[in-house]
């Protein structure tokens, strides 16, 4: 069973809450289900912030936290969370002090994930809202089938760069690759099957690295505005990168967008 301790007994006796607003959990030797049960229990009891220590591979953290009354919670993770962190995330805020594994933000709905480290494969897979900020790089198939609808527009900002199949079948949303260490973008098959959304790359990319459905152009002032906004937010959350907004924004950016909304229309229709 989870060990929970009150770490913040702030406030005078008069306005002391019935349950602690901030709770710390030791996740050592807890399995995925027990940890997520505990998080749900804490959310329902009105806890607003949970610090989880010794996380080691437990999956789906942040997933089962939908409530009809739309309760929100901040989750701070120390360790290495398992696959599908923040899957279906419903407006909560998750901070990871360490690296994340595969499938971060899988079908995420709203909220925010900040990773003080790197992320594995299929980051932002089918993501449909909210924001993810990753300090370092990420693996294969980032933003695979990311999508947007009306006012829901997911945003993914990566401090490093991504590997192959970035933005595969991407249908919406914004992806920003900052390549802060300037190693160059090595990914191939970028945007294969892409039919919506936009990818911004800092630096250069060769035409042969792009899927045939992708158009590449320099950024215009309206793009700069979007970039400025999200780079500012990236630096607010990840100040340890030690760069100023100007240093990042005043460099060449490319904009990748789909050439067609229906790249396979000739394949599947007669």
């Amino acid at each position: 069973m989870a060990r929970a301790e009150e770490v913040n007994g702030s406030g005078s006796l008069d306005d002391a809450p019935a349950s602690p607003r901030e709770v710390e959990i030791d996740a050592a030797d807890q399995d995925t289900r027990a940890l997520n049960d505990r998080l749900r229990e804490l959310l329902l009891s009105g806890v607003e912030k949970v610090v989880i220590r010794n996380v080691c591979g437990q999956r789906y953290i942040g997933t089962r936290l939908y409530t009809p009354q739309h309760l929100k919670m901040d989750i701070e993770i120390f360790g290495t969370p398992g696959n599908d962190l923040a899957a279906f995330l419903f407006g909560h805020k998750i901070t990871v002090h360490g690296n994340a594994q595969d499938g971060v933000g899988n079908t995420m709905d709203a909220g925010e994930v900040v990773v003080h480290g790197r992320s594995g494969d299929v980051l932002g897979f089918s993501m449909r809202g909210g924001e993810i900020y990753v300090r370092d790089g990420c693996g294969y198939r980032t933003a695979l089938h990311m999508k947007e609808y009306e006012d829901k527009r997911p945003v993914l900002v990566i401090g490093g760069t991504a590997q192959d199949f970035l933005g595969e079948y991407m249908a919406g949303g914004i992806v920003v690759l900052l390549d802060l260490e300037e190693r160059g973008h090595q990914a191939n098959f970028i945007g294969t099957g892409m039919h919506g959304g936009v990818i911004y790359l800092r630096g250069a990319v060769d035409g042969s690295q792009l899927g045939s459905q992708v158009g590449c152009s320099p950024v215009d002032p309206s793009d700069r505005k979007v970039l400025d906004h999200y780079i500012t937010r990236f630096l607010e959350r990840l100040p340890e990168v030690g760069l100023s907004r100007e240093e990042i924004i005043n460099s060449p950016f490319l904009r990748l967008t789909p050439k067609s909304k229906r790249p396979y229309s000739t394949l599947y229709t007669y």
Partner: protein
Amino acid sequence: MPRIRRELYSKEICSCSIFGAMNQGGERFNAAGVMRAIANMHVRGNGLGGGFAAYGIYPHYSDYYAFHLMFTGKSMQDRLEAKAELEELLCHKFDVVYDEEIPHEDESTMIDPPLIWRYFLLPHKRGEEEALSDEEYIVSKIMQVNTKIENAYVFSSGKNMGCFKGVGYPEEIGQYFMLDRLYQAYTWTVHGRFPTNTQAWWGGAHPFSLLDTSIVHNGEISSYGTNRWYLEMYGYACTLQTDTEVIAYAADLLMRRQRLPIDIVAKILAPPIWNAIDRMNQSERKLLTTLRMVYGPLLMNGPFAIIIGQTGRMIGLTDRIRLRPLTAARRGDMFYLSSEEASIRLISPELDRVWTPNGGEPVVGELNNMRTVLQ
């Protein structure tokens, strides 16, 4: 509409887990750490298979081939008959210097464990067979045992290494063979879950090995039929009823018999796709085109992440478009490969470097000094 509370399944995750740890300085360690690491990926398995390959565990018998034998069959009588038949062959074809049952814990803790025995031996070649190299001779005898002697399977046959495997979770298999107490290895590779598309049986668990090459595999080889047919032309008999076996034999054919370097072997097993080849410079294009023509039937189609163990070496490789996970990490002399980073962090919280290897590109750890294990 009221929300109907649905049952949450307690067990819905399933996929293989693989893990490897190597000390490139040649320092040997027991399996306690890798058993914890693989147990941390418990949800990836299903309790129907688990196994270990360990390198450097028999320093006192390092000049001898260590055969690990599995005698299956329904009754003890069947197993002892298979053992008698096997030993008759060994007496004629080998010099056996030592043999014993592989120590294990109480059999009642496992599902249907076979009789598992080890033999340390040297080839005893006669007549025409004297022309064969030791390794060719050994491989031909292993194929003979596995195809001709009912209920007897050689599942490990290298020098100064051994495989331990069976039906159960990998941490249970490790306990059963007491790998955390009885053995010290400089490389351990581990696998959890069961052989793809086949029934679970002790011989069908990973690793699959031949001589000192062992394979643990997450994925599915959909080209198994083609690969098997090709390997049979070179005398490899696939008897263990599952796909991963072909990778072990392909690695033996390419790396031991044909002496190809791992970079080339990776390009055969997981070649770049044609339009990537089209973009290469002329000499690369020629090489890759030639490899695809000559070794087409050894292309491993389908998703895979594998860890290949060999004397002094541990190699990680995924299929060319990385359809299965593999994370690599280094800390000092330690080199790790794992399906999930958390398992590495569990036994080595601080790491110098962690990365996602590119699909089709091997990541290799080698002993700094081969002599530390060969002397």
